[in-house]
């Protein structure tokens, strides 16, 4: 009978510590959301490289919340400890409570807690930028530096969304973190949010990456609404070839100027340009390959799962998340509109030499936004190839959003 009771007691204890007993209804809703995101990543291929790890991190943290638990200290009676360890004394600090001596036994944190330090301390986003820099050809931007203006105009979404967030009741720091979704640049959004409003990291990361995946759906209607058929049909002049020396000097000059003028943007822009210098210098092929392959992939896994792991039911299922999702959509729309409208201004200023559609690529989301510009342009004129023209504003948008991030951190941080 005693054995049966012990057996039952053990089974009940195991059930009490299982997810069925410890998780609440919000965790189960989040598990459902995670499964939907996994479906979108795998079946629909919506930004799978990041959405898949994000969704799985979300799944794991809602199945086992302690995977994100910080390290803790538990108290155990010294006598109890010694009994359990055959009389051996522990090598722990002691504390006296109610006349009894306790050991302070440190408990390690959950796996994701430690991996998350790379996000919290702002390490992963700049490393991702290193890889992006190593993969990016800034030639179209160097060839046509006016593209920088389109990259700047498309940052309008960030600041307009900031205003919307402020009036919805978010604090200044939270509004800054929400606004940066408009930069359409995942690492930048995570970098800024980890600094300004870490409590919103989960919803902001999910919104940012989801909308980036939806760029081909969000942008075209705005682009068509703001341009005429004639403007969309404009064929742009061939870009001039860019010499190797120009490509090598570009990252050095941009780093020096941006870091001196806006130090808060230095970690992002500096690492982006370092990666690009690896690529363009041509003397560190191995490092360049590592930056754009192995390192990038490892950081992508860590960043994805840990950002997903911030989306616990308790944090994610709130009215704030819905507001962030709506504001994120507005940010993308304003950013696209800002770029296209500035493209129209450039079109008029150059007497029809600039196709305004390339302005939409200024929102970053490399290279998806540039491909959208190409696709919409070809709908009007199948012989029109805007891709390389759109890559200029596209990569300018990366620099622009990093600069905007620096501005937000500088003002609000």
């Amino acid at each position, binding site marked *: 009978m005693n054995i049966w009771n012990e057996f039952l007691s053990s089974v009940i204890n195991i059930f009490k510590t299982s997810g069925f007993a410890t998780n609440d209804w919000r965790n189960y809703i989040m598990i459902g959301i995670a499964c939907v995101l996994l479906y979108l990543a795998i079946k629909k291929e919506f930004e799978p490289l990041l959405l898949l790890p994000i969704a799985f991190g979300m799944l794991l943290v809602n199945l086992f919340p302690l995977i994100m638990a910080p390290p803790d200290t538990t108290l155990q009676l010294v006598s109890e400890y010694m009994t359990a360890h055959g009389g051996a004394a522990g090598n722990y600090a002691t504390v006296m409570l109610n006349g009894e001596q306790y050991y302070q036994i440190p408990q390690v944190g959950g796996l994701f807690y430690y991996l998350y330090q790379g996000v919290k301390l702002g390490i992963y986003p700049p490393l991702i930028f290193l890889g992006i820099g190593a993969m990016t050809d800034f030639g179209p931007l160097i060839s046509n530096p006016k593209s920088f*203006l389109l990259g*700047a105009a498309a940052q309008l979404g960030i600041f307009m969304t900031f205003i919307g967030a402020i*009036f919805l009741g978010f604090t200044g720091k939270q509004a800054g973190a929400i606004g940066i979704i408009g930069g359409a640049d995942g690492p930048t959004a995570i970098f800024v949010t980890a600094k300004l409003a870490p409590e919103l990291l989960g919803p902001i990361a999910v919104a940012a990456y989801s909308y980036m995946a939806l760029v081909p759906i969000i942008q075209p209607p705005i682009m068509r609404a703001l341009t005429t058929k004639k403007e969309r049909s404009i064929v742009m002049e061939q870009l001039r070839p860019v010499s190797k020396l120009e490509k090598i000097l570009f990252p050095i*000059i941009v780093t020096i100027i941006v870091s001196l*003028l806006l130090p808060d943007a230095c970690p992002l822009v500096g690492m982006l340009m370092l990666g690009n210098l690896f690529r363009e210098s041509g003397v560190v092929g191995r490092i360049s390959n590592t930056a754009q392959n192995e390192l990038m992939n490892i950081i992508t896994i860590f960043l994805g799962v840990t950002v997903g792991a911030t989306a616990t039911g308790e944090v994610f299922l709130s009215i704030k998340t819905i507001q962030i999702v709506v504001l994120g959509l507005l940010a993308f729309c304003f950013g696209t509109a800002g770029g296209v409208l500035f493209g129209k201004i450039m079109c008029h200023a150059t007497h029809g030499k600039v196709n305004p559609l390339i302005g939409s690529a200024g929102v970053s989301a490399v290279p998806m936004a540039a491909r959208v510009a190409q696709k919409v342009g070809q709908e009007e004129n199948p012989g029109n190839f805007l891709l390389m023209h759109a890559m200029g504003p596209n990569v300018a948008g990366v620099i622009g959003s990093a600069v905007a991030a620096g501005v937000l951190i500088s003002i609000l941080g």
Partner: protein
Amino acid sequence: MSIDQKVQLSLIVLLTGLVIVFAMLIFLTYIIKGYSATIRSIMSKNNSKKADTAIDTKPEKEDVKVNESSDVSYEVPSEQSTNLVIEEGIPEEVVAAISAAVYTMYGTSTNKVTHIRRSVQSNRSAWGMAGLLDSTRPILMDGLF
């Protein structure tokens, strides 16, 4: 936060943000234009110097014919052979573009295009061309940010 404070903060961030982002990127635009122009002028000077040297040191006749299954034949001609033979119907812009491409690839000004003629149309289908474009696209990124 009162409404006044919200309006004030919004305007500060909007104005500061847009002005700094535009100022920074406009500044970068001019810097890049400046250094690009400088580099190109230095390179063109160097090229013309090299060309002068080459003309001085290589007056003798070479008659190397290159035809890499393209539309263009170019020769390193003697000083006397200056006539360019162009097939009828090829516009001047195309001639200029081909000459520029040959010059960019092969560098020395002693080389010049002597014949331009149409080759047989490639058998590659539209899908094949799309595949070629896709695999030779210089941006090899996969939507990571």
